[in-house]
């Protein structure tokens, strides 16, 4: 809180206490945040017998890559990861291309009868739709067209949830760009489309990158739609593969820890790539970050 002026009236000890408690809180928050991530990583490097050790082995004493071999070489987790990747890239490509055009159209043009507001609101509201709600018709639809267990079906379903996001995110970016440069391009003889393509789009490059990374993350993490649409190894994604190794009778801890940790690694890298855009992305562009 900006309270620079009140500090004067405050005693120095109180300021020190505040500072120390803040640092202590940061420390505790960091431990609580990072411990679960560390724990899944640590367990992925333990032999089964050490995973079950009581008291728990805080640091793996006998580190091993056994579970990575099990998951990614002997079992099809590499296939699942590749499926996740392909679906994420497909979804992101479609969502970013169409979302950027729609976002631009909503940011720059006017429409009769307040359509701009109505359409923006409607697009946002489709984002609010719970996936479980659209799952039954999507399932019947893909079943009818014989598309169950295909990556295309996943891409179509994921696009329904990523496109509204990409549209709002890009709309927010274009609204922040000055319109004068595009006007100048048009005065110089460029077309309206040309002004978008040659002037606005290059300026929005950071926004495009952030939007793309967010779409990749959302698709990579998705579980429910994939659970319904895919049943075969050839089409299942990483989260489904992991969930499949948690059964009623036994849980393959080492294997799912290895696969789970590997599912987290690219996300953490992406998170650091978009750190500047985190706020805007996660609040649908409504809050400037």
């Amino acid at each position, binding site marked *: *809180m900006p309270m620079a002026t009140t500090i004067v009236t405050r005693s120095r000890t109180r300021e020190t206490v505040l500072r120390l408690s803040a640092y202590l809180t940061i420390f505790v928050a*960091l431990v609580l945040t990072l411990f679960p991530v560390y724990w899944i990583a640590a367990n992925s490097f333990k032999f089964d017998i050490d995973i079950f050790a009581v008291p728990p082995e805080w640091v793996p004493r006998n580190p091993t890559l056994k579970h990575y071999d099990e998951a990614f070489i002997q079992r099809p987790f590499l296939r699942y990861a590749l499926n996740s990747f392909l679906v994420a890239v497909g979804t992101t490509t479609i969502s970013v291309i169409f979302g950027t055009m729609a976002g631009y159209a909503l940011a720059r043009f006017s429409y009769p009868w307040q359509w701009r507001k109505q359409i923006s609101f409607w697009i*946002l509201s489709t984002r609010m739709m*719970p996936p479980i709600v659209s799952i039954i018709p999507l399932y019947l*639809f893909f079943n009818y067209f014989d598309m169950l267990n295909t990556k295309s079906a996943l891409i179509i379903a994921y696009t*329904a949830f990523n496109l509204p996001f990409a549209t709002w995110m890009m709309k927010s970016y274009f609204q922040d760009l000055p319109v004068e440069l595009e006007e100048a391009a048009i005065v110089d003889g460029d077309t309206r489309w040309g002004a978008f393509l040659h002037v606005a789009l290059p300026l929005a490059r950071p926004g495009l990158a952030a939007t793309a990374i967010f779409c990749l993350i959302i698709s990579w993490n998705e*579980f429910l739609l994939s659970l319904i649409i895919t049943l075969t190894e050839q089409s299942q994604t990483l989260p489904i593969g992991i969930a499949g190794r948690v059964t009623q009778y036994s849980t393959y801890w080492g294997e799912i820890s290895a696969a789970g940790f590997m599912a987290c690694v690219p996300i953490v890298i*992406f998170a650091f790539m978009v750190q500047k855009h985190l*706020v805007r992305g996660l*609040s649908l562009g409504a809050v400037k970050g």
Partner: protein
Amino acid sequence: MLKSDKGTSAAPLRLGSGLERWAERHLRYLMLAPTVLILLALTIFPSIYMFYAAVHRISPNPDLPWEFIGIGNFARLLSDGQFQVALRNTAIFTIVAVTIEFLLGLGLAMLLDKYIRRLTFLKTVLMIPMMLPPIAVAITWKLIYEPQFGVLNEIMFRLGLPLQAWAGDVNLAMFSIIVADVWQWTPFIFLLMLAGLASLPVEPYEAAALDGASSWRQFWDLTIPFLKPVIAIALLLRVMDALRLFDLVFILTGGGPADRTKVLSLYIYQVAYRFADPGYAAAISLFVLFVTIVLSTWFMKRMRLAE
């Protein structure tokens, strides 16, 4: 907004064919069309189809025709004890989890804002949980809650407290789900609140301090009103997410024990795929959709988010 909206098509001389000129004139619609059409196909069509399914009895046997039963499936909702349990569980989860996340996130942001405003790296580290795949989060917490060799019971043991079954305990299962959700999503509220705090104007606080207003008064009379739009967005997005909770429950408890964590998404999933009754599942889905639309519309209209 371009002032020259209407004139743009006349200005350029390069426009060749009539088609190009037509495309240029209707650019605003052409750019919007793919998104609108895709979303229409992927949201409006399923909704209509679902309404159609909801008024039929659909046999698991695909050779049998759908039997029209009018509002029969909706009437079932009223007497379905499982549905009411799921509704109550979803309500409990949403209210408790979002409240804790909000209070914790806002509190942490208020306390830490001054100290970590410039520490982007540290902030990003604190944000990691919310980016992770919910399935990975779920198995991580499953490992922590494990009654025999889990970390949590080790801590309980060292503190001299009774060991618990956590996600497997009738009274603690919902609490366990909430803790995992709070772990994953408090950073989200924290992040949004930090962004809100960073954009607060300084002058009103200086004036308030000169008037001798306590920090408590400043918090209620200045900070909260200024943060209201950010708080609204944060709560809206969290509530919408909480209503669709699925992954954590699917892995951690499967809805049990004794249906204590059976939430609406999971119940719909079970009705549709385990009890093979898609007509009834469609009716429940429509109910969830209705609640979601009413809640989010009310919220967005009230907070004027759509502008």
